[in-house]
């Protein structure tokens, strides 16, 4: 085992308060990410203090999920919050530097919650078939 990793379940409405507690202890924000799990999104907020890794986790519905911004506590969260907004469609409320869906240039809206191959993409031709 390279390192112990603590994963703590939090309620979205308690996220800012819990993040503030870690910030006051000197933790830095490591990353924020979303993971599609069927009809839900798993949200992960990771923090580190002297290589002690703590991760907050909660679930959101796949579409229409809302989270409060933690940019008031960690300004650097603006990049991650714009990313989950653009790629997963998560609505972040109160982002201090909100690019309003223009952080990434993507061919389709919220590509990371779409199915792997869009129905509009035709199947590749079989060899020898015109």
């Amino acid at each position, binding site marked *: *085992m*390279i*390192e112990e*990793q603590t994963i703590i379940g939090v309620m979205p409405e308690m996220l800012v308060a819990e993040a503030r507690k870690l*910030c006051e202890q*000197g933790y*830095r*924000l*490591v*990353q924020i*990410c979303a*993971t*599609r*799990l069927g009809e839900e999104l798993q949200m*992960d907020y*990771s923090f580190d203090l*002297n*290589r002690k*890794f703590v*991760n907050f986790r909660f679930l959101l519905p796949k579409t229409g999920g809302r989270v409060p911004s933690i940019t008031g506590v*960690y*300004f*650097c*969260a*603006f*990049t991650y919050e714009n990313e989950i907004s*653009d790629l997963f469609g998560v609505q972040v409320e109160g982002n201090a*530097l909100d*690019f309003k869906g*223009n*952080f*990434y*240039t*993507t061919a389709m809206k919220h*590509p*990371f919650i779409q199915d*792997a191959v869009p129905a509009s993409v035709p199947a590749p031709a079989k060899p020898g078939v015109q």
Partner: protein
Amino acid sequence: MGHRTIIPFGPQHPVLPEPIHIDLVVEDEKVVEAVPSIGFIHRGLERLVEKKDFVEFVYIAERICGICSFIHGQTYCQGVEEIMKIEVPTRAKYLRTIWGELSRIHSHLLWAGLMADGFGFESLFMHSWRVREQVLDIIEATTGGRVIFGSCKVGGARRDISPEQMTWMLKQLEVVEKEMRLIVDVFMNDDSVKHRLCGVGVISKADAISLGAVGPTLRGSGVADDMRLLKYAAFGELDFAPISRTDGDSYSRCAVRCDELFQSLDIIRQAAAKMPTGEIAVKVTGNPSGEFFSRVEQPRGEVVYYIKGNGTKNLTRFRARTPTFANVPALVKMLAGCELADVPVLVLTIDPCISCTER
């Protein structure tokens, strides 16, 4: 208050080999605010885990970046190995350490050249890249590749370094060290270089932590944090302490990278002396089921991979948070208040890798 103008910086700019855009709000010659934009070449590589099985995916991970490619592959492999509880042979851990540190040396020399070019010191740029070529020759001789090594796999390493190659490599590194000392001497002591770097773009220790900075950007502000302290690969058996500087300015960030060149040489020599004989890989059976946040120190700082598997050959999620992505907020902070002419140099002091950021 003077007249405010917005000057677009990038995505095409002489100091930027890759596209990033910054809107610089300036008053006369002073930058008062910087708003970054990325996403011009976002590739969505993370979703390829749905099409490539977890063993093949190391090839994708290595191609996230053309500079720290080996360490990307290593970070991925270590994450999958943690989930699958695979004990990698000790020799493979030493091989990974050696190749990882060779990556760091060639990445820092690449940065040194770009930095010298950025502040107009063309001969220093050429010498830095000339020495880098010698490091790439060593990498090519031991892995077969100059940039994409292809030598790391889930379960260990794909190639070994023979005793003859090791002897040759250590001899070549002695030459490289002599050359690097000449380059670093100019970087650290030349008046024209210090004039451009000292006291410019200061990030305090508290700001570096709160802005989530990583790597030399963090260590240049007095925070001696380095993921190699997690003792992954062979670092648990090697003498290693992070290099840091306290001034937090551009010169400090450069000094950290310059010192790390020689630290990496020392790590390679230690690893070569202590590397045991034996197998370099174990057979991998089954599929990953579980999750892990894999963290490794790249040349630009901590890289984080979130890997989640559900027992099938395809991972459920692969997420890469690269060091440049984490250093963008620190860059925004250091640009505010600087002179317009210092912007290119400041951008280069975080050693931006947009290819990584736009994985």
